[in-house]
């Protein structure tokens, strides 16, 4: 040991193909993305992009608010002037379009943004993550506990629960698009049958209120088996002696779960939650195949907007800006994870 027995360039020769590949196809595009955000580069253009400062970020993230008092609330509901009649021709609101509106007392507050579609997509992406991460992790934990219970046939059941993971998300989306179909889908057929016709058919993917929840349920179904296996490995890493000792002390199954299983799984659960969150924030395939971002923009996501602007509209600089914002989100998730891990004193992992 310590004595070098090979030529000093040998390691570089071994590492070169991989390192060159990573530099060219991972590091360089990342650096390019950051530089592009300060330009107006187009995908296909004879002209090189010009420096535009923070204009892309401004367009992406600028928000404002318009507060209106009712014009006359004579005999009933208050009436407000049309937002467009105020913003049109007003320099202060140039480029702003309404994102959403809400009531505050008798005032109406209209939130304006220069790219309301992106902010809506950002909100949709967060909503997806907030819904799918707990659902998928809880499903995965339940499945892991079930196939770890020592019941007969658990290897078979483990394989069945895992099988959607090996299926491509495109295929899953296509098959589920049929299951979600309003008139002929299996879900509406089953609902109608169970409720004896009382429940009207739901247009799952065509209704702004149900489209995202439908994608959430499908995504959790597809991915839970993956987390199940990782949690299962975590479960099997908990010492059986702890359970035996607790049982001798008369602890109930629930007490053993709360005081041994959950603390023992803490690191694994944190890891699984972070991996699931990062994947959720990149939501794209399901949306592209099933809804194309609709209805009324309720399923558009950050990645969907990045591809729409960067590739389909050939505004690569703007698409890159969205990618950088997406990466900032991921970084935030990892910083939060590290903070939780440190605070809980979770050990060496």
């Amino acid at each position, binding site marked *: *040991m310590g004595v070098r*027995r*090979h030529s*000093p360039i*040998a*390691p570089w020769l*071994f*590492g070169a*193909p*991989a*390192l*060159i*590949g*990573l530099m060219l*196809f*991972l*590091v360089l595009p*990342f650096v390019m*993305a950051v530089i*592009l955000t300060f330009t107006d580069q187009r*995908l296909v253009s004879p002209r090189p992009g010009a420096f535009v400062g923070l204009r892309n970020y401004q367009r992406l993230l600028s928000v404002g608010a318009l507060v209106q008092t009712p014009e006359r609330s004579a005999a009933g509901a208050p009436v407000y002037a049309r937002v467009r009649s105020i913003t049109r021709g007003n320099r202060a609101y140039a480029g702003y379009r309404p994102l959403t509106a809400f009531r505050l007392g008798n005032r109406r507050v209209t939130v304006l943004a220069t790219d309301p579609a992106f902010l809506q997509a950002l909100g949709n992406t967060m909503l997806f993550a907030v819904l799918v991460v707990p659902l998928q992790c809880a499903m995965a934990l339940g499945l892991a506990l*079930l196939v770890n*219970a*020592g*019941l007969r*046939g658990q290897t078979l*059941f*483990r*394989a069945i629960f*895992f099988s959607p*993971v*090996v*299926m*491509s998300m*495109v*295929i*899953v989306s*296509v*098959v*589920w698009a*049929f*299951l979600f179909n309003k008139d*002929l889908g*299996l879900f509406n*057929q089953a609902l109608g049958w169970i409720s004896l016709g009382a429940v009207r058919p739901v247009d799952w993917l065509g209704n702004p209120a149900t489209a995202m929840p439908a994608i959430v349920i499908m995504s959790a*179904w597809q991915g839970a088996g993956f987390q199940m*296996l990782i949690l299962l*490995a975590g479960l099997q890493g908990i010492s059986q002696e702890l359970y035996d000792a607790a049982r001798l002390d008369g602890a109930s199954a629930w007490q053993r779960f709360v005081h041994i299983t959950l603390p023992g799984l803490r690191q694994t659960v944190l890891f699984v939650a972070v991996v699931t969150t*990062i994947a959720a924030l*990149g939501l*794209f*395939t399901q949306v*592209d195949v099933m809804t194309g971002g609709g209805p009324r923009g309720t399923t558009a996501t950050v*990645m969907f907007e990045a591809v729409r602007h960067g*590739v389909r509209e050939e505004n*690569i600089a703007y698409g890159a800006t969205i990618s*950088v914002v997406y*990466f900032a989100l*991921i970084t935030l998730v990892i910083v939060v994870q590290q903070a939780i891990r440190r605070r809980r004193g979770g050990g060496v*992992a």
Partner: protein
Amino acid sequence: MTPAQRWSIPLRLALHALMVVLAAVFLFPFLFMLASSLKTNDAIFADLESGRALLPVGDLTGANYVGAFARGHIGHYLANSVLITVVTVALGLVVNSLAAFALARLEWRGKQVVITLLVILLVVPFEAISVPLMLLVAKLPGIAFGADGVVLTGSWLDTIYVQIIPFVANTFSIFLFYQVFRDIPRDFDEAAYVDGATPWQVYRHIIVPSSGPVFATVTILQALAMWNQYLWPLITVPGEAARPLMVGMEQFFSARKTAWGEVMAYAALITVPVLIAFVFFQRWFVRSVVGSGVKG
């Protein structure tokens, strides 16, 4: 003594029943896909109101599969996807294991810096760089094989290799190899070096033969990822010639939304080979996933 043996029989039965119900929840989309792929559209709709929707019963037909080949060009896309997956995985096994060998078993300056860099790069999701990477490959000089022989082109877009080359080097694969190579006892290679062996011989005759499982793990994870690629070919391969399966599936689905049977046949053709591989190599799939869990 397993935990279940301590549980009462009614509880065990209840848990078993729960598992069976859940298994049905996880299996029914597969069953619906397979059963529908063998029926005419009329039969699919007629069967929807009963359990027959999930069973291959009634007048079965292979016409949907014929349609998937004739109208969906699935044979062509299948060949592209197989080529892309096999070449990427094969090159990746060599390139990434060589890099991991240099990191785990050779002494050199700058090694720690490279390892730290790799750990940082591990968390960059592909989605975050896909749009700028697309601009990059659109400007790289490429080659094309046309009627006039080999010609130089100004872009990698719309080729098979744009779906291969960027994915050969993979931080995660390097890491999986690195963790295994690092833990192989050093006695053998020390002895081999004393006898005048080169690093290549040590890699080839000591390290690779003693780490078969990690090669299988990396093969499965990479093959699944490549087979299921969607976003990247969607944005870089607009034409039909180099189109892979998943993009072909999406196009077929958009164009023939009402031809349920044909779409399901197309989906079944893509899924069944992977499911068969999964059934045969289940143990290795499980190992791969658990291995990927050490990432944290």
